[in-house]
């Protein structure tokens, strides 16, 4: 059935919807070597202080940096990003310092002209204009905001990434207010998942979500199938297409530099039991993967 919604959309919206989105190849060379297919939902889960927000900011930087500037290759994607900050963890200072360092490194390889600092600042501003930050203070506001994002996405066809930090932010409040029963909770979750799915299907988005680990990891020895339990509910579980688990690695050597001392790992789960783990460190340039 043709929905009247489609009939009443504006030309700009139609173009935004049908427009061939910029390719997301090389969004992240190590973790996503192939083309990131549209409509994927990535879930980044982990304890506190394992670099979930840092990895998101790294992806944001990769996306909004230009492909090249002043004839120098910067290796960005030059696409738009919407960052929904539910945990209030988005750090503008950190993001700008990542962008500045990346641009400076790229430019200094070529020449050392005097107005370098000026041009770096200009490029940073151009990058930032491709990013939209939304902060929500309650789960109903988050839900309504998801519905209202259509306008923004319709007007900005170059947006192809949506970041949510973090999806579990309102879990406890929701659990005690709206959904005292499991049913009520599932319903409010379903509304959120439906709104998100509608956005990513209509506008061909790729979604990255941080999910804080709110419960102790239990090992289900007697019932392995229960280990797939997700406290966000089965609607959410079905929406997620890729799972990354982040963790901390204890340093082996005592005397290493400050940067090397903090080593993190990310495990990419794909398919049934296949998984690969990469370790990374957090530097001024974002996230750096180790061999």
């Amino acid at each position: 059935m043709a929905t009247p919604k489609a009939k009443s959309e504006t030309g700009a919206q139609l173009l935004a919807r049908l427009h061939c989105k910029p390719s997301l190849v090389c969004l992240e060379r190590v973790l996503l070597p192939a083309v990131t297919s549209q409509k994927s939902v990535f879930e980044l889960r982990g304890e506190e202080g394992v670099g979930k927000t840092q990895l998101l900011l790294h992806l944001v930087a990769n996306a909004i940096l230009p492909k090249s500037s002043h004839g120098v290759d910067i290796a960005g994607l030059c696409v738009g990003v919407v960052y929904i900050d539910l945990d209030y963890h988005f750090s503008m200072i950190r993001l700008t310092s990542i962008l500045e360092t990346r641009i400076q490194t790229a430019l200094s390889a070529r020449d050392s002209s005097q107005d370098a600092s000026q041009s770096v600042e200009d490029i940073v501003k151009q990058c930032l204009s491709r990013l939209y930050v939304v902060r929500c203070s309650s789960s109903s506001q988050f839900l309504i905001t998801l519905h209202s994002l259509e306008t923004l996405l319709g007007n900005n066809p170059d947006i192809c990434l949506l970041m949510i930090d973090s999806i579990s932010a309102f879990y406890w409040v929701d659990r005690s207010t709206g959904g005292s029963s499991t049913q009520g909770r599932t319903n409010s979750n379903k509304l959120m998942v439906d709104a998100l799915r509608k956005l990513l299907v209509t506008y061909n988005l790729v979604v990255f979500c941080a999910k804080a680990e709110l419960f102790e990891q239990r090992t289900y020895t007697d019932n392995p199938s229960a280990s797939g339990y997700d406290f966000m509910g089965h609607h959410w579980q079905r929406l997620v297409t890729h799972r990354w688990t982040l963790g901390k690695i204890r340093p082996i050597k005592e005397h290493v530099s400050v940067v090397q001392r903090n080593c993190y790992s990310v495990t990419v789960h794909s398919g049934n039991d296949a998984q690969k783990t990469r370790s990374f460190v957090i530097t001024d340039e974002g996230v750096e993967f180790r061999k």
Partner: protein
Amino acid sequence: MPRLRIGLCPTLTQIVLEKLSRIGVHDVVDILTTDAVEVSQKAKVSYKDVLSIQRVLLAQYSAFPMNAADFYVDVMSSVAILSTGSSNIDQLLDGGLYTAEVTEVVGPVASGKTQLCLSIALSVAMETRQTVVYFDTGSSFDSGRLQDMMEARQKPLTQTVEMIGSLIRCCKVYSVFELLSGLETLKASLDDQTDKLCSTSLKLVIVDCVAAVISPVLGGFQTDGHAYMMHISRVLKTLAVEYSVAVLITNNVVYGDGGATRPAMGKTWSHVPNTRVELLKPLDSVGELTPRPQSHTDSDHQRHAILLKSDRLQTNVSTTFVISDYGVQ
């Protein structure tokens, strides 16, 4: 979730409202998450009206997406870094406490959490003449100690004790509800703008210690405690972000498996602060019991501070500081 009522938007009249409530559309979320065609067919309200109600409500209740270029200008003009009074800790935190961030100090008994809070409060009041609001949950706020520090810091006395004292407001709270109402009152007076002292120059909110009021409501199989806890965390974060205030909270530690310490209040809370600093007494870190020296030596007042979590900085960096007459150094 806000309920639908007359006055929310011009097309939402008494008749429309009744028609909508007959089909089970009672609040803002109901009408926004249901398809406009479905609503208009079921409730027999004109499609155009439903669309216009949806449009108005969307604009009213959604969060506004802000372009990061404008956001950057905002942040750069509003961010302030508050010195803690100790050069080592300032260095650890890249300058001090940042506004719009929640910083948590964790540590066992007598690791210097309250001393650090008092000292930072005094530094902010004395050096920047900004207001500090101090929520005290364990009656650990010691105005005598504050006065001693003040006198030790300035010779000759240039600023009167009363003047500095008026900049530091202490608010004693003994339950999670008192803390919540205290924070809400503070927010209201910030919005109000009539309270000059608060609205113009509030830069720092301290909660010492947040676990003292939250821990009693946690536990068991009920979830209300967690909801109160997250509610407090939301209010603290909103204060920090929307009013550009630095929030400093202290937390206890609990001993887990194998005697390892971790911050109290569990996993959910551990995700809340932007920055976490752990304080340790050197004795604890070495783990051996040495006889307490008779005279107070410098090492007796020495503490370690370790940066455990940060949005901006390399973690697991440590430094030392000393608790003295002056505060923390």
